[in-house]
């Protein structure tokens, strides 16, 4: 029973924390760039405001445009049920594995791309086309990174991968894990629309990918999409933080270990957010047609990860 309660609590925590993680990256980035920056809780204010605002929908848009934000958010919520955030093993570990997580996120991308095409705006089409291109090219890397982990854990289920790394702490530093971490990190940047693949702060439509796709959204629909994007970022951070460095995650499900889990989770998020903020300050956006090169680098990293996991089992 406690497992189910934790499962729901964990999903709720993910939803609540997600905008904060985005705010943290923005704040750190501002500090690194010698700006004062908005406070960490600014994204919460934005979401609250957006939920209160009027919705403007294009006269070309169909029901799909209005349904897509709910599907996108719904799939993000479902994903949080399967990702190890605070504790393992949880009862839903056997319901969905890492492949389910990846394909649920792809479902969100699929609907968002359709919604980008729906209003008939050239920007939406441009965003949709680019987003699907990048999503498609990122897919092989994700699969290989998953398999590199699964090979040493003997399972694609997240709970078991975490449990295995917990019982073999040395595995976290094995070349297979490190390479898979790098591969998945690049993919996480691509999938969540961060620099150098996409610039979340851009104001120029022609360089947008994710932002161009959701250009027609406003009000509560935009709020849902922004929130879901933040949840997606948090999901990738949890995967990177907990699959590769599971230290701190609660396996006993007692209040004390859970408290430790919350603290270490926040610390991991802060480290990852700091890494993204430094990266986004240091490097510029890649030209769109240089992105496949970066993704093929991550694919090769994934390939090497599987190979070394295989050789060093």
């Amino acid at each position, binding site marked *: 029973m406690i497992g189910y309660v934790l499962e729901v609590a964990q999903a709720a925590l993910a939803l609540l924390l997600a905008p904060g993680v985005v705010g943290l990256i923005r704040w750190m980035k501002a500090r690194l760039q010698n700006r004062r920056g908005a406070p960490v809780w600014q994204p919460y204010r934005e979401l609250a405001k957006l939920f*209160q605002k009027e919705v403007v929908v294009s006269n070309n848009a169909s029901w799909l445009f209005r349904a897509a934000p709910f599907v996108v958010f719904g799939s993000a919520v479902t994903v949080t049920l399967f990702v190890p955030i605070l504790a393992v093993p949880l009862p839903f570990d056997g319901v969905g594995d890492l492949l389910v997580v990846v394909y649920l996120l*792809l479902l969100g991308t699929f609907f968002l791309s*359709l919604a980008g095409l729906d209003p008939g705006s050239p920007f939406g089409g441009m965003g949709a086309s680019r987003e699907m291109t990048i*999503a498609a090219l990122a897919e*092989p890397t994700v699969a290989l990174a998953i398999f590199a982990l699964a090979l040493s854990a003997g399972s694609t289920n997240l709970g078991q991968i975490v449990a295995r790394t917990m019982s073999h702490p040395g595995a976290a530093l094995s070349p297979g894990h490190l390479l898979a971490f790098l591969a998945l990190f690049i993919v996480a940047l691509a999938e969540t629309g961060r620099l150098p693949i996409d610039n979340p702060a851009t104001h120029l439509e022609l360089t947008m990918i994710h932002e161009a796709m959701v250009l027609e959204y406003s*009000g509560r629909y935009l709020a849902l999409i922004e929130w879901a994007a933040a949840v997606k970022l948090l999901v990738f951070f949890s995967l990177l933080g907990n699959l590769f460095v599971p230290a701190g995650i609660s396996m006993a499900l007692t209040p004390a270990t859970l408290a430790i889990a919350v603290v270490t989770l926040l610390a991991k998020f802060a480290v990852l957010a700091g890494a993204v903020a430094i990266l986004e300050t240091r490097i510029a956006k890649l030209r769109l*047609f240089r992105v496949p090169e970066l993704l093929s680098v991550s694919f090769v990293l994934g390939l090497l990860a599987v190979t070394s996991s*295989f050789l060093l089992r």
Partner: protein
Amino acid sequence: MTLLFGLMVTGYAFGAVAAALSPNDRAARLLTASGTVVGGGAGLAVAFGHFASGAPLALEAPALLSIADGLAFRVDALGAFFLALVGLVAVPCGIYGAGYSAAYEGRYSLRFLGAMLNLFLLTMSLVPVAGNVLTFLLMWEGMSLTSYFLVMTEANEPDTVQAGGWYLAMTHGGLALVLAAFLLLAGGAATTSFADLRTAAATLSPATRNAVFLLAVLGFGSKAGIVPLHVWLPRAHPAAPSHVSALMSAVMIKLGVYGLLRVGLDLLSGGPAWWGALLIGLGGLSAVLGVLYALMENDLKRLLAYSSVENIGLVFIGVGTGFLSLSLGAVPAAMLALSAGLYHALNHAAFKGLLFLGAGSVLHATHTRDMNRLGGLIRRLPWTALFFLIGSLAIAGLPPLNGFVSEWLLFQSLLPGIGSSAPLVAPLMTLAVGVLALTGGLAAAGFVKAFGITFLAIPRSPAAEHAHEAPGSMRMGMGILAVACAGLGLAAVPIMSGLGSILAGHAGLAATTPRLGGLSLSMPGAVGQMSPTLVALGLVVATAGVWIGVRLFARGPGLRVDETWGCGRIAQTPRMEYTSTAFAEPLRRVFAGLYRPTKDLSIDFHPESRYFVQSIEYRSEIVPWFERYLYAPVIARVRWWAIGTRAIQSGSVHAYLTYLVLALLGLLVVLLVQGA
């Protein structure tokens, strides 16, 4: 059972005869459909009767064509699976066809179409239950010929005639190879019944077994549409009437897989590891090239046809992994991979059937298949749009529909191979994982394009603007398959245990039952577990919960419908939209090494000043590698030979009689020499 089998044959035969003799076009359409539905339904009943009782049904008529053991039918589990596949798609396509073919009234003969459709389905249903070589080949050839005539339905279109030519040539090339494979197999057998061939196959030399397998891969692969033998498929499937396209893509190409399994798994009981590796290689090539060519298509039905090449590639990856695992002695892994392959074949039948019917409904409404002239159909064809969306989600392998479940299982079946210590297996499997994932991602992009460009945004032509929804019969046909797409995903656990018992017994595969952890799919040999039902439930509950939550707590001040924002432009026209070509442009550039796009830009300047442009014409084409470098030389050589043989064809009967006498004399001389 025998009664149901008889009902199936009579149903189709009645449909064929009644359609041919019907008094008018309307009656022909209805009689065709009734025969198809009765035949397909009875076929399904035969298959499920066999699954339920397990009793094999054997019908023999050795007196008919007694020189080659006569006609024999035998329903076993493997055959019943493919019989069910035919029935599953035949029933909705029959219902759909009744409405769809109304557009042919007065233009093409509906009597002929109806008769051919039912004969096609009859022969296609009898292929997997054929009990000996003669019956198999007769039904196989019947299926090929009737489908050729169906492809040729719209014979007034020049493209159709060309497509028919390609199809006829490829299918008969395939038949010759299949025939050769069976001749080699039957070398040591007393009769040509499959049971005798199976016992005889054990005594064949390894070289003969390899030759039989290779011939079977090429022969059945040409029917399945495996690269590089796929060239007929994107031509012939789109040219046929849409419900026939659905049947060809959803069912007929699967019989190529059936043939391969019957020969490779059942009769030869598996073979060396390279058999599996060959199938994985061919499958991977077909999957990636199929989806890459699908992405570049602007013709909706051709896009779907190329996507069939992709999906048959995925099935081959599963089957190949099965053969490979079998040769390594990993029986649970082999079972998992083969079941995953068959499951994907079943799922592909449902969603590709649905998508072709949807494309047919678009064609019916707008008279065009060019996506650059479509758009905005979701408002004019709401039902078709919904069904097509379901099909697109399923084929893109997205949860919670059936395509996702079989792709997940395919992924799972590759993982044990990565851990294998046999040489070269691990790298092969790792590459296969990459191929599978890339194919899945590109398929998602392709179907965002197919659905988004066709159904969303502003209509790009008057035809799309004035489109009309399909009639009830067509909607019903699509509806049945849409429900099947959802149901086949949710019922993953019983389906996988069913597939396990179908495959059990072949080539030493022991029956494995899924470990049923509640609703979770946890297969022996697999390394992960997943519950399609609970994932679907979670998704539905989460999405509905969000919707209710937003309605309750965040209604906001309302909703305003206004123009699309456009950077200050005055009015929006369809010409500003992204087109099908534009959508695929980034991928065209990423994979430029394969496509080698040609660019042809001609700008017509204003005579007064070069700063003003009157018109711009941009043309870009991709290199058809296989047609240009593989088939063109072969066709040129065949043509050269054909022209050469023209010399002895004078048209005079006397000359031909002389040839006959000369040939006879030649044979006698040969006999004389041999006898001496």
